[in-house]
């Protein structure tokens, strides 16, 4: 039988199959234990790096894979299906990569991209603070200009892979004698974590993506050389916004991966498990749940394909397409995981089955890189643009 036409070409499908094989063979078998230990083993990170996957968005001139945004999305789906914490690694690393690729000087690209592409340098995104999350304009971490660079002071919290990142994309507020909370400009800095004055504290006891090596980061009079500033004054929030767009695209595809994993686990369980002399799969109420999951996964995947294509084309609507994909995929993943646990019954409440982890991981997707409520606000503000065009 001829295969159903895909939403992507043969080269992309070949890459997807490679991503899937790698994720299922080398990542998925360790996901439960990483979740239990709340720790990402170095070996796993090394394996992802050795495949060049951390350089997905880096162009070939800097040693990257030069994947397009659809291929990058499919990589996130496959890693997300295997382990959301590994997908999180790719998310925050790629946010740093994207910022350097889009906003970096020739010197910054030459200095940082080869290491980021090969995974010798792990990147992470440091925006959120104890008192500032979704509101990037409310950041309190200060950058004061000094001879040859900037002095950074402040605290960042909930930073994924903050425990082990080598290079942070830090958002700070420029503080001058004239600045007030209302007029402070944001600045984006590339911050090597071996800088004196920097320290980090692991955060444990998380609900989901528990092996994401979250940390609280402390900057105490850290000197950042002027050449580490990304882009020009006034563009700090634009750097932040474009990094968040990549983060949201990555998380959206990761949500599709979680839901696909829930669907596969549920279908397999329902076929095997017997109740009332019949396989669960033969009960109509279970069939209804599996049908809803199948349709939901595919609709979210299509939104993600659209967002990736818009982003690849550099279309101004890509911002909106990514917002919608992330909002929908996160919600859909949470619903799919909820149904998967229900289908598994008591077994779904045990960590012997992956669906309980998928359920917890799915919930976090509605919070990270913009809560669903923040995204609803941002999407609503763009409705006029859609109607005008």
């Amino acid at each position, binding site marked *: 039988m001829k295969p159903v036409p895909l939403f992507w070409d043969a080269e992309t499908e070949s890459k997807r199959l490679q991503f899937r094989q790698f994720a299922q063979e080398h990542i998925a078998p360790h996901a439960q234990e990483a979740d239990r230990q709340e720790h990402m083993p170095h070996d796993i990170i090394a394996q992802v790096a050795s495949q060049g996957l951390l350089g997905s968005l880096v162009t070939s001139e800097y040693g990257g894979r030069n994947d397009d945004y659809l291929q990058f999305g499919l990589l996130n789906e496959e890693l997300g299906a295997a382990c959301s914490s590994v997908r999180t690694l790719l998310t925050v690393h790629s946010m740093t990569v994207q910022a350097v690729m889009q*906003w*970096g*000087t*020739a010197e910054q690209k030459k200095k940082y991209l080869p290491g980021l592409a090969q995974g010798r340098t792990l990147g992470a995104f440091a925006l959120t603070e104890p008192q500032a999350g979704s509101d*990037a304009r409310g950041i309190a971490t200060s950058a004061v200009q000094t001879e040859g660079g900037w002095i950074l002071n402040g605290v960042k919290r909930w930073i994924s892979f903050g425990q082990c990142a080598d290079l942070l994309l830090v958002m700070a507020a420029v503080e001058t004698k004239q600045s007030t909370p209302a007029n402070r400009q944001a600045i984006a800095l590339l911050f090597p974590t071996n800088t004196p004055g920097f320290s980090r504290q692991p955060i444990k006891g998380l609900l989901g993506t528990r092996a994401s090596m979250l940390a609280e980061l402390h900057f105490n009079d850290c000197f950042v050389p002027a050449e580490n500033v990304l*882009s*020009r*004054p*006034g*563009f700090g*929030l*634009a750097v932040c*916004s*474009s990094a968040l*767009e990549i983060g949201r695209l990555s998380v959206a595809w990761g949500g599709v991966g979680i839901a696909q994993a829930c669907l596969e686990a549920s279908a397999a369980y329902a076929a095997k498990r017997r109740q009332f002399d019949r396989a669960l799969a033969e009960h109509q109420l279970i069939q209804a749940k599996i049908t809803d999951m199948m349709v939901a996964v595919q609709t979210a995947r299509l939104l993600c394909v659209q967002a990736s294509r818009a982003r690849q*084309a*550099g*279309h*101004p609507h*890509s*911002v909106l397409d990514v917002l919608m994909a992330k909002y929908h995929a996160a919600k859909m993943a949470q619903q799919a995981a909820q149904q998967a646990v229900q289908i598994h019954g008591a077994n779904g409440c045990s960590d012997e089955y992956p669906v309980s982890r998928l359920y917890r991981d799915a919930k976090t997707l509605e919070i990270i890189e913009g809560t669903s409520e923040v995204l609803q606000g941002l999407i609503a*503000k*763009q409705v*006029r*643009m*859609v*109607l*005008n*065009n």
Partner: protein
Amino acid sequence: MSKINEAVRGFLAGLCDVDSLSDDDDIFAGGFVNSLYLVQMLNFIQSEFSIELDEDDYDMANFRSLNAIETFINEKQKDQQ
């Protein structure tokens, strides 16, 4: 009104109220465009006018007003011809 001005106004109309926006108004200071939407505007300028931005172009002076944007696009198009 030039075609560039008309196109940029048309784009901004999707984000803010452009009726009271004059060609020299500071679109950021005036609150017409939230800087979070700056990326979206840069994408629009690149795709609509077939120009490629490089690191030297990221200067707020190029994007501060409708007149500044038009001057920048005209110069960029000449450079890339």
